[in-house]
């Protein structure tokens, strides 16, 4: 048996989902008894059969990848509940096994997968999708690139028609149908508290969390997920503010971006310039704009 052939056989077995009691399945995905599959390439010893030796790796794989998703998506877990989240995670990982050297990327395809498999979230599909988008943005923002912030002299000579602004690569702009930012912050706070709590206390919190999810009503929000002082923050934006920032990321000039952002706006025309000035003040204070790549490298 070649190296590649052996590795394919073993990986297929290791990545086969466990039984509900967290043991290796008796039958392999191709219908053969797993005992026979294992015995083909793994030696037994005086204490363990080939099946039992393979099972150690099978269980380790699933414990590792499932705990990684639990850690990365506590908000989605709160929405679906522990049991459903686990079942969904298994189905996701069967369809989308890791293709990255790092577990950090394990949930990178969860949003698109969940969108195609609405049965897992049922009536909470829109809420669940919003939460996944927020949690993945949180991961990306945490370790995304931060470039040198824009200085006044970098834009001194530019006009509204020529000025093009770049957002920090760690910023993610989200349009969401539910206020999932509040929910996620509450879930994370609870998780921190229950790390030091008794089982009864943890159970009470779990019930409260479920009630909070059940109460959450749709309410469109516009959000920037960004990083400051190495921590990730969620900042609520006005709709036009998000559209303006999004236009900058699309390479629009300042004039075009403003026109685009206010095209269908209900904000009275006479209020807009003060608002834009205020937004720019905040964005500059947060260091959201960065220098053009060439200028940043030269400095």
């Amino acid at each position: 048996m070649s190296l590649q052939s052996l590795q394919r056989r073993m990986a297929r077995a290791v990545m086969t989902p466990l039984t509900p009691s967290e043991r290796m399945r008796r039958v392999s995905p191709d219908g053969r008894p797993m005992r026979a599959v294992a015995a083909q390439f793994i030696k037994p010893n005086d204490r363990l059969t080939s099946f039992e030796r393979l099972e150690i790796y099978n269980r380790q794989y699933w414990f590792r990848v499932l705990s990684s998703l639990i850690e990365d998506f506590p908000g989605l877990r709160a929405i679906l509940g522990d049991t459903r989240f686990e079942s969904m995670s298994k189905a996701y990982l069967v369809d989308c096994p890791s293709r990255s050297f790092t577990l950090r990327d394990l949930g990178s395809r969860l949003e698109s997968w969940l969108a195609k498999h609405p049965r897992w979230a049922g009536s909470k599909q829109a809420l669940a999708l919003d939460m996944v988008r927020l949690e993945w943005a949180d991961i990306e923002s945490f370790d995304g690139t931060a470039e040198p912030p824009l200085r006044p002299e970098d834009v001194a000579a530019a006009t509204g028609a020529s000025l093009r602004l770049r957002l920090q690569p760690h910023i993610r702009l989200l349009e969401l149908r539910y206020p999932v930012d509040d929910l996620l912050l509450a879930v994370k706070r609870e998780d921190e508290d229950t790390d030091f709590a008794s089982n009864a206390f943890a159970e009470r919190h779990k019930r409260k969390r479920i009630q909070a999810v059940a109460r959450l009503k749709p309410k469109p929000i516009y959000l920037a997920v960004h990083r400051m002082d190495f921590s990730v923050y969620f900042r609520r934006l006005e709709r036009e503010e998000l559209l303006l920032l999004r236009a900058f990321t699309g390479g629009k000039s300042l004039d075009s971006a403003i026109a685009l952002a206010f095209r269908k706006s209900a904000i009275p025309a006479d209020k807009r310039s003060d608002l834009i000035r205020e937004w720019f003040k905040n964005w500059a204070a947060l260091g959201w704009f960065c220098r053009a790549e060439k200028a940043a490298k030269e400095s």
Partner: protein
Amino acid sequence: MPANQFNSFTDYGIGIGLRATHYHHILTRKPVVDWFEIISENFMIDGGRPLHVLDQILEQYKVVQHGVSMYFGSADKLNRDHLRRLKALVKRTRTSWLTDHLCWGSVDGRYTHDLLPMPYTFEAARITAQKVREVRDFLEVPIAVENVSSYAEFHVSEMTEWEFLNEVVERADCGILLDVNNIYVSSQNHNFDPFAYVNSVPAERVAQIHIAGHSKYRKYILDTHDHPVIDPVWKLYARAIERAGHTATLLEWDDSIPSFQEVHDEALKAKRFLASASLATAV
């Protein structure tokens, strides 16, 4: 002998793994530690707090990179994105040598994120050694491969684990990160004499030694890195030091991690063995 080409002729002493739970203690108390080992993959990112902390650590301490997903033994080709990111980190840390495991964990581009055991065949040794050479040439840093704990053996194996290790390192002309806890764990799981393993390793290639604790189950032992080092492992360590001399040593503690001081004190127990090795060299 211990300061050799596989650890850039350094003599690092006793280190511990850099773990997030200890960041605050290290950055505020600045304890005296010979060196830290980092898990490369935790820092192969574009920005953020992990790299910020790493830069502060690098200002004060020596750091060696240890990887968990290069998978030298995988039949797949090397992952170019992985290599590019790893090279950027090597430039940042200026690691004197770089280690990863003698194992596989991915096939056809799908990753198990585990350290899966090798079949001990000549084909596997050839493929593995070739990949070690490719990685070393790309990264331009000495490479040492670590023996893993294993729970399964394959029918196709043509040699013992230590013969396979020797075959790979001779073909690749690379160093060894000798994990004496892994030798102990595998010896119990596969019924071999751990001293036969330690005695067969080419001592002149040992760049670094790992020590760790493990968990014993009824029918096998798991390499969990969540306990102190047990006496039989210290005995293997003593023998390894006796053969290889004063070698950079690192304690791994990755789960149920106690206080920084407790982890460091456990690592420093290696001092008495290193001291006798130094004495033997002097005599």
